[in-house]
């Protein structure tokens, strides 16, 4: 029987971690963009936008991410669209992330005093200018801690993509366990790696928060 060193295990997990990072980045960026677009549609009071976005948020917040991944993978192929695990996982995580982020950010925008809207309206600023120069910067300050807190959830959420055959950290861990029969060692390494991914994000959030408040 082949003998696996700790380094073998670690190296293979490290290689798989690339895909966890890539999937997380896709979810952050895609989810952030879609979430922002939904937020603006809602603030601009596009007809029907409020109702639609509220429904969208409820749908993705009210169902498990696992189901969303299954539906994206198997549901789309039922419709005749053959999607790879990559596409399905990216799609499901982007939608999931956007639903949470748009709701988090809506709260942050709502926390900006009404007088700021009125003063900038009275100065003839357009909605875009108000958001960009007056409301946005103030909402951003409030938004950092909950946004980053949620992004950490997303990094860990990518583990669920293993169920549709997407080979990221968790899936790689399972496969390595099957080859090495050393589950404790493998999963301990796995946990360390998730921690190594998530901890810097939290630390960055702390420093960003300090910077944003220091600029007052």
């Amino acid at each position, binding site marked *: 029987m082949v003998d696996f060193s700790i380094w073998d295990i670690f190296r293979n997990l490290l290689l798989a971690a690339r895909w966890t990072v890539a999937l997380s980045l896709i979810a952050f960026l895609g989810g952030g963009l879609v979430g922002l677009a939904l937020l603006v549609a809602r603030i601009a009071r596009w007809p029907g936008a409020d109702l639609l976005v509220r429904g969208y948020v409820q749908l993705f917040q009210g169902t498990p991410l696992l189901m969303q991944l299954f539906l994206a993978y198997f549901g789309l192929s039922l419709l005749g669209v053959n999607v790879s695990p990559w596409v399905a996982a990216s799609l499901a995580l982007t939608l999931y992330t956007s639903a949470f982020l748009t709701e988090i950010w809506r709260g942050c925008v709502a926390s900006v005093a009404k*007088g700021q809207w009125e*003063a900038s*309206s009275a100065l*003839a600023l357009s909605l875009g200018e108000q958001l960009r*120069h007056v409301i946005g910067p103030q909402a951003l300050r409030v938004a950092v801690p909950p946004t980053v807190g949620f992004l950490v959830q997303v990094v860990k959420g990518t583990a669920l993509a293993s169920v549709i055959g997407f080979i990221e950290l968790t899936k790689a861990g399972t496969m390595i366990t099957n080859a090495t029969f050393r589950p404790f060692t493998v999963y301990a390494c796995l946990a360390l790696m998730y921690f190594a991914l998530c901890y810097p994000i939290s630390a960055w959030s702390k420093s960003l928060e300090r910077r944003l408040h220091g*600029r*007052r």
Partner: protein
Amino acid sequence: MAAAETPAPKRIVEIKGLKKRFGANEVLKGIDLEVGAGEVIAIIGKSGSGKSTLLRCVNGLEVFDEGTLTVDGLPLLHGNKAAMRALRQRVGMIFQSFNLFPHLSVGRNVMLAPSLVKKAAAAAGGEQAKRLLARVGLAEKFDASPDQLSGGQQQRVAIARALAMEPAVLLCDEITSALDPELVGEVLRVVESLAVDGMTLLMVTHEMSFARKVSDRVVFMHAGRIHEIGPPQQIFGAPQSAELRQFLSALDG
């Protein structure tokens, strides 16, 4: 100015038959008011009489249900973004709670709207902001942050910010009500200097002695209507209606 103009002073604000409802509650029940160029109008009345709502209708912060309103010849058209942007450039507003932008320095508070809306060049905007801050007595605060200022100073910055858009009329919504008593004077002195310089002013105020001293006409609002209107000597010296007499005597008490 063309020589063939009529001798009548130019109308800056014209309000005709304006009605405003909040749900079933009609807060403005048909307001007619014309404000001439350079005129200073004080609006007084009990809380709930509709005076702040009337003021907020002039720049479209409140949407009215009936009637017409023009500023400097521009009609107020709700839902027409271009028309609202054009009209709001002619109307400055100062609020009870200052509403300075807390994330911007004092100078940038003043410069923001001209740079965005009028596409003013940064250098010209900076010069103008310095000039306006000097006018309200805060030249040295250009780089300060709003939360380093007293309430009276913040309100004076808000005045400079409104003036930066070179409005035809300035709306003042109880601008000294949130101030400590010792800070009221510095703000009122600035407003008075604007009146002297010929700025058209429409102000909701509880400062009766100030209204008496500075305004050309006083509007007494009661139950959603203009109940009495006239020069301050008449409104304060010889009130015609029982409601106004009661309002004034309650203030003295």
